């Protein structure tokens, strides 16, 4: 923790689309830095002491729930676990995450979009017996390594950083993007999901899917959970290319 006391300058995009005639402007707020200060702490300080109308979303404030992604000095990242001491000149510019409907200031509506993705890749186990399992009996066995692998791909917190960093997504509205591929890959390796590769192909076997990806890997660079986008996209492509 840095012990020096400095005055940080936050430059924040202010815009409330709920207010007719409001126009986006950058506003600057000064905050006295405290040791161990995160952007979560600083923004709350601004809201409590300077401008109670400032909008942003935090829930867990521990890097777990994925609510607080925003553009921090040009990079998409989770604001709650970004320490202000990371910025040597004390200038911090905050913009809302692009690619999502803006609610106001730094708050964007990720929920609708994320649910859309889950519906599109049908993000659940496809097995007609899943609801008729005899719950008294021993559970179906699973190889411990397979369980671990599934978990590795399920660590996505739906923060949207990969979406905001994806060039293809910007050009093609319906592009599924990296977190959608990751979700699909997670079900594709799960032995409990009985979908065939042909069925997965129906979901991602086109330009809106994995063949539209330009593999520039913005997703890999900015994913705060370090999910293995590069290897998963490559492996999904190989798998899908074999279908047709």
């Amino acid at each position, binding site marked *: *923790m840095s012990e020096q006391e400095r005055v940080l300058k936050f430059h924040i995009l202010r815009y*409330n689309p*709920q*207010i007719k005639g409001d126009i986006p402007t950058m506003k600057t707020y000064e905050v006295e830095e405290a*040791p*161990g200060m995160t952007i979560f702490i600083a923004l709350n300080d601004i*809201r*409590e002491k300077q*401008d*109670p*109308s400032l*909008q942003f*979303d*935090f*829930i*867990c*404030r*521990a*890097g*777990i*729930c*994925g*609510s607080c992604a925003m553009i921090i000095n040009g990079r998409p990242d989770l604001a709650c*676990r970004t*320490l202000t001491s990371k910025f040597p000149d004390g200038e911090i510019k905050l913009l809302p995450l692009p690619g999502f409907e803006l609610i*106001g200031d730094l*708050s964007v*509506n*990720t*929920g*609708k979009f*994320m649910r859309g993705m*889950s*519906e599109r890749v049908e*993000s*659940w*186990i496809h097995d007609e017996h*899943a*609801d008729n*399992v005899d*719950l*008294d*009996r021993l*559970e*179906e*066995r*699973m*190889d*411990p390594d397979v*369980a*671990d692998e*599934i*978990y590795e791909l*399920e*660590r996505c*917190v*739906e923060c949207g950083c990969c979406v905001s960093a994806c060039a293809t997504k910007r050009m093609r509205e319906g592009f599924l993007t990296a977190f959608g591929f990751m979700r699909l890959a997670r079900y594709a390796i*799960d032995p*409990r*999901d009985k979908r065939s590769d042909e069925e997965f192909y129906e979901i991602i076997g086109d330009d809106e899917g994995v063949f539209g990806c330009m593999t520039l890997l913005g997703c890999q660079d900015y994913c705060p959970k370090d999910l293995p986008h590069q290897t998963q996209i490559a492996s999904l492509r190989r798998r899908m290319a074999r279908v047709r």
Partner: protein
Amino acid sequence: MKIVYTDSLIIGGGLAGLRVAIAAKQRGYDSIVLSLMPAKRSHSAAAQGGMQASLGASVKGEGDNEDVHFEDTVKGSDWGCDQDVARMFVNTAPKAIRQLAAWGVPWSRVRRGNREVVINGEKVTITEKNEAHGLITARDFGGTKKWRTCYTSDGAGHTMLYCMDNKAIQLGIQVHERKEAIALIHEDGVCYGAIVRDLITGELIAYVAKATTIATGGYGRLYSVTTNAVISEGIGCAIALETGVATLGNMEAVQFHPTAIVPVGILTTEGCRGDGGLLLDKDGYRFMPDYEPGKKELASRDVVSRRMTEHMRKGKGVPSRYGDHLWLDITLLGRKHIERNLREVKEICEYFLGIDPVEEYIPVRPTQHYSMGGVRTGPTGESQTMKGLFSAGEASCWDMHGFNRLGGNSVAETVVAGMIVGEYVADHCAGNPLKIDTKLIGHFMDREDRKISNLLGRDKGENPFELKKEMQQIMMDKVGIFRNETDLAQAVEELKVLHQRSKNIALKHRISSSNPELVEAIRVPKMIRLAQCVAYGAMLRKESRGAHAREDYPERNDRDWLKRTLTTWKSEDDDLPEVSYEELDVMKMEMPPGSRGYGVDNTIHHPNTEKRVAEIEEIEKAHPDADRFELQQLLNPINVPDKFRGKNERIGRGYK
């Protein structure tokens, strides 16, 4: 007036709320879930440690079953729980976890052969059996006889919540996000739904339903330092309280977790100690064995938190600019283990403390963590005083935790209660056609609308952020781990003053749509009332039980206090809740009160305890051939929905 009709309204999209919605939907009832945020961001996602269920597949869980789990849970509760509910819970937990396995949670599995673990500071090799390979495994947690906490690496809550929300999406259950329930609609002891504020447009909407379930999680944010999410503010409990009819149970039962990081209060999971981590003082000395030679670091949470506080009071804490703390040492677990099974902890240490826990100690101190109290319900999950109002999960006082809940028993409660209460919600929908006068809806709508207009119209008054800060500080300083009459009486008085002041909040930013200051202004008076319930209940309870530790009444007093605190708030003009008590009947207990086995036992016993012990012996003697299931039925017959009555299979012992 915008009105949305449904069969089953669920306020809260965490594990409990989603599971109730799924149950009702699967029975054919239309269900709508309300949530402040996307459901997958609910605080359930933060549970890193795991879920208790007595599967007994891992070799360290051998011999485990419902009865052992029951015993741990009742002891853990310091005999404050409802034993019928604890029974329903332990019997159903194995089914709940197996269902989640079928629905997609990638539970960590038993791997056959040798593996190295750390137990009591030493590396030990344990050998997992061949025939258990691939079944759900478990880790050690505080206050449990067996290794019973099932997990997915370091993300149990995350994988459970994602699975549950995905299941809800599969079933087409609507989740209305960024909606906040701010009042219940009710008349003559029947609940008809809620008045809900759209957090984006500010519009008020009436959601009208046959059954309304409160599953809004805990109220940790009544305290200034807590492991809870910033939205864990207890608003669901508060709107139940404000009906003046529904009761809250045991609000003074507030748990402090031993190991949250200093200063920000983010949790490092109990899994750290479960997997072998140690607590050290400023001299690097392992002090827990001196206090609790039996369970050491893995004593029950309330016990460890108190011992840590005692040890710091002896001057053994590590001084820092944020006050004293202790060390959590997980370096002995090794990099490989930490990076797989405690990765979230590692990330938290790196991002928030700038340290690598593989090599350095973690600064920790006991921090507010869990709300045992909440909306009081009977075993079916329905309020005892308001029809059609249900509650499940941390928001409820279903009461399987009594005065202290065991680690891993909470996410387990959310899904088990969700299954069971969900069935009763569906039954309720089946038996109660919706009959409501729109005038009643209009009455509640106007009332809430007027309150908001008043807030927006007031020129000068109190700042809601400041009121909240003051409340949180009072709770932290005076209603914390150790409590006494002087502090509590002061807290009660100071909160009364805050409550008065909260009637005069004025805003700087006076718009009705998306406006964080208005959100705060609506919530803070509700939070202060909840805080008053906690503080006042704590002041009146003149004994120590579980997490409620009175310095001036250090003994557990079953004779006078084997009862549950119930609070109601009858009128807007009152400045304190009304408190009454619900006796726990020793003569019906499957496990009569005894010693938890920590420190000296100075319990003041209940006159019926000996009688009941003798009676149980008689029953056992009279039925020498009864197996454990038959005995349980004799001692504590419980009702669960038929579909959950079956015996649970375990490896190596079948259905025995």
